[in-house]
């Protein structure tokens, strides 16, 4: 198969993707851990209630809500920021793939990747069916 740009082989693309995933997971896990330590420090002695489903409050349900919660230094908000980073990691990979396919001038896969990104964005910003 002839590649228009030899600099952007699939092999190189895969290495960068691997790095993105690694950084994303480490960053997310660190934020979750930090939030977790704060959370246990503040609420460790309270009893847990997970047997009845209430759903999370509005500030833990959306990207903007979580950001506000983090700025007021809420432990649960900080953990939720780590969760958002985790969700963002595969999305970052997809975004990078669009750039890589564009550099390879692979129109079919630019389109394929844009569709996947569209579904992910729709989901993250409160989409549902």
């Amino acid at each position, binding site marked *: 198969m002839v590649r228009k740009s030899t600099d952007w082989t699939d092999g190189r693309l*895969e290495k960068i993707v691997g790095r993105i*995933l690694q950084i994303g997971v480490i960053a997310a896990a660190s934020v979750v851990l930090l*939030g977790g330590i704060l959370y246990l420090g503040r609420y460790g002695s309270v009893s847990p209630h997970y047997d009845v489903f209430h759903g999370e409050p509005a500030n833990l349900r959306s990207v903007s809500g979580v950001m506000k919660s983090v700025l007021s230094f809420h432990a649960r908000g900080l953990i939720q920021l*780590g969760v958002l980073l985790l*969700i963002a990691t595969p999305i970052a990979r997809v975004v990078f793939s669009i750039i890589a396919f564009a550099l390879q001038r692979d129109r079919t896969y630019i389109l394929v990747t844009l569709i996947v990104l569209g579904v992910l964005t729709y989901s993250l910003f409160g989409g549902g069916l």
Partner: protein
Amino acid sequence: MNILEFTTLIWLGSLVAGFLGSLTGLGGGVVIVPLLTLAFGVDIRYAIGASLVSVIATSSGAAAAYVREGFSNIRIGMFLEIATTLGALVGAALSSTLSTQILAVIFGAVLVYSAFLSGRRREEDHRIDKPDPWATLLKLDASYPTRDGKVQYHVRGIPGGFSLMFVAGTLSGLLGIGSGAVKVLAMDQAMRLPFKVSTTTSNFMIGVTAAAGAGVYLSRGYIDPGLAMPVVLGVLIGSLLGARILFGTKTRLLRIIFALVILALGIEMIYNGLAGKL
């Protein structure tokens, strides 16, 4: 039991689940929901939310190592992710309309099926030499490294594989699991990919699929930070430890034991679902 004790126990349970899941290749995600619901009495919706987040963590953590080895096929992964992410949206939408009893029964059935699949021998045969027109159009044929150098492979059964992937995505969004079993089935049986390629590409796709479902769960309020924290950190650390000793260890017996555990959990989930206890 206070939150500190509860969190520690869930962290330990998730650590063991992640470790066994990655060591045996069966995935730790499938046992998280039964662990949380059956052992800790957590509502199945919170359990599914926490499990789905942990699935993203393990997939991304493991994929980071896999992609660099050159086994996974990024094009196949990306193409099939159209099916899995759309499926995940449908699954996540369904999860809020189905009762927790029905969710428990479906979950149990998937566990029983996964246990059954893991007991089957995967045979690498019927390799194809003729290119499929779909595969050529989508540039899915590629090569992967072996001891004897690079081996070329062809892909077939694209429509069948794509449809199965939609089902895998739906199950992932509905139950908060990676549904690696269905993904590998689609890629092994329908598309005839070499094992190394299907296993690693499937793992690679699981993160994107779970991210699509997790977005919906987050906005519905199913993801509780206090629960997600020990589950994510436990499963992630456990699976990274498991992956380290994956190579060179005989895991057959462990695999059988873990499959039996999954089978037992599946039956218990179905029983509890039918009895209305979950």
